[in-house]
């Protein structure tokens, strides 16, 4: 297998990338570009690709400019970055819990973030948007802390019980959220329901900048996380004997996972299954080292969310389907397939 390498400073900084993985990454990048173009070109207003591109360089009518740069572009960019963050969150969660079926929206992290945002909206309707992100982080973190305090930090306790406890917690939190919604007025409830289903409908440049900031923070974190993440997949004992600080690494990775999920949820609401599927798809595309695997995971998550948003807003005509519903409808069957595969392997 051919390998691309880069190094400098007398090998003190050095990276290697398998060629196939690099090719896949380039392919995904062009897919992201294509999705962006498709998002710019399609929608209910009759602004085509030509008008939209003209708007980007400032050479279009005011109306085309508004549709393309204020509605479609921020929305597509937000979906991309929210999906990428969610995918990274899933990869970290699966790695730290040694559970291939872990997903922030399955174990209640997303639901905790969602509940916190809804509570904030009910108690302090006038709170600034930035608080939403903070509420989401602490909501998601609380959910993660509850699960871990019930299951323990060592991998032995983490696997099955982590998932079961998480599923119970998710059921509990969504029951609370649904019930809370009945207290709001119908218009607010309907809007909140749309948000809870994972929608980027109202995304503006504010959302773009916030998710871009989170993404920019995520990349260096992932570069540091890649190796401990790969080592934890070998089990606690082996990771420790390779010189990793297991408990500390697991706590740090989980915090990062929650932060990524919260950053995504605070922008688009809890989108299910992107965090679950992207890491598996990345592994299918290329057997890559830990760092490249995370990069592939990010790109796939971004594509999944952007595609889901594109489908959701074009499939049913004027009615817009939240991206989260599209990912749930596609993701649940994939999850079932993955589950069958995992369990068949465990009981041959």
């Amino acid at each position, binding site marked *: 297998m051919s390998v691309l390498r880069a190094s400098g400073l007398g090998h003190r900084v*050095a990276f290697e990338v398998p060629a196939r993985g690099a090719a896949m990454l380039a392919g995904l990048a062009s897919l992201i570009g294509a999705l962006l173009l498709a998002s710019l070109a399609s929608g209910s207003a009759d602004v085509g690709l030509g008008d939209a591109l003209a708007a980007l360089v400032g050479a279009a009518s005011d109306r085309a400019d508004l549709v393309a740069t204020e509605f479609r572009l921020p929305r597509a960019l937000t979906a991309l970055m929210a999906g990428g963050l969610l995918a990274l969150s899933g990869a970290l969660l699966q790695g730290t819990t040694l559970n291939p079926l872990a997903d922030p929206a399955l174990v209640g992290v997303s639901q905790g973030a969602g509940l916190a945002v809804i509570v904030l909206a009910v108690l302090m309707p006038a709170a600034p948007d930035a608080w939403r992100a903070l509420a989401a982080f602490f909501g998601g973190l609380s959910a993660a802390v509850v699960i871990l305090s019930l299951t323990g930090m060592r991998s032995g306790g983490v696997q099955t019980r982590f998932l079961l406890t998480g599923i119970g917690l998710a059921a509990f939190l969504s029951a609370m959220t649904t019930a809370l919604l009945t207290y709001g007025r119908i218009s607010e409830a309907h809007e909140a329901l749309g948000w809870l289903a994972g929608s980027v409908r109202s995304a503006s440049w504010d959302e773009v900048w916030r998710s871009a900031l989170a993404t920019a923070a995520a990349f260096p974190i992932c570069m540091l996380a890649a190796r401990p993440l790969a080592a934890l997949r*070998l089990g606690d004992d*082996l990771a420790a*004997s*390779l010189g*990793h600080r297991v408990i500390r690494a697991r706590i740090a990775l989980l915090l990062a996972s929650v932060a990524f999920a919260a950053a995504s949820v605070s922008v688009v609401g809890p989108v299910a299954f992107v965090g679950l599927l992207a890491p598996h798809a990345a592994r299918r595309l290329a*057997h890559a080292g830990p760092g490249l695997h995370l990069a592939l995971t990010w790109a796939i998550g971004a594509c999944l969310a952007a595609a889901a948003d594109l489908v959701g807003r074009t499939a049913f005509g004027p009615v817009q389907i939240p991206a989260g519903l599209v990912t749930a409808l596609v993701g649940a069957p994939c999850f079932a397939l993955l589950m069958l595969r995992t369990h068949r392997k465990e009981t041959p």
Partner: protein
Amino acid sequence: MAQTAPKTNGRVVVRGLSVQRGAVHALRGVDLDVAPGGMTALLGRNGCGKSTLLKTIARILRPAAGTIAIDGTPVDRLSPRAAAQRMALLPQAPILPEGMRVRDLVAQGRHPHRGLVRHWSPADDAAIAAAMQATDVAQFADRPLEALSGGQRQRCWIAMTLAQDTPILLLDEPTTYLDLSVQLEIMGLLARLAREGRTILVVLHELNLAAAFADRIVMMRDGRIDAEGTPDAVMTAPVLSRVFGLDARVIADPETGRPVCLPRTAA
């Protein structure tokens, strides 16, 4: 071999080691000297503390009392990275990471030799290649681990510990769940590594496998060391009866001269 020479000798000295697991005294004052180079096998019944001893030396478990030193340095003074440069552990039945290529698995062993932003160096390449060659897994380098057989996988795990380039190798029952021919192959590999100068401490389940390949045997019973010495000195009917509750005869292998245990089966 292209393997870089071990930086330390690999002498392990254990003094007065006691370990508590829950309410159970898993180890009660163990003293053990492992000389550099050669293979030492830890034997005993289930629950006698042999795995506990191995894991405590590897710093997975914390001792309640006693000291462990590697070449004179107490292991609890070492950073995780420094410890990982001195000894490598292969746990029993390690988790199979889905989709991981053999090369990436073996590369994990280089972690203690890498920097924060230095993900790769020529020394890494050399160590990884040498480890895969020594264990004869180079031809699988780009295959995912789950595509291999049990014995091939076990050789990959051993390659990973070799890539760690440590003077000491700790292995917890590396032959369990493998076919007999594969067991022999793995033990032959370990014996060769021991002859090349590594200190190998291995927990084994199979008496005759230990007697055939190990240089020294340590018999454990109830958290203490009951007997230790060369296979000839330790594999005797009284020791087997005491440690395993086994009524057995010990004969010499007609070809190698090593002791072989034959349990009496009263018919």
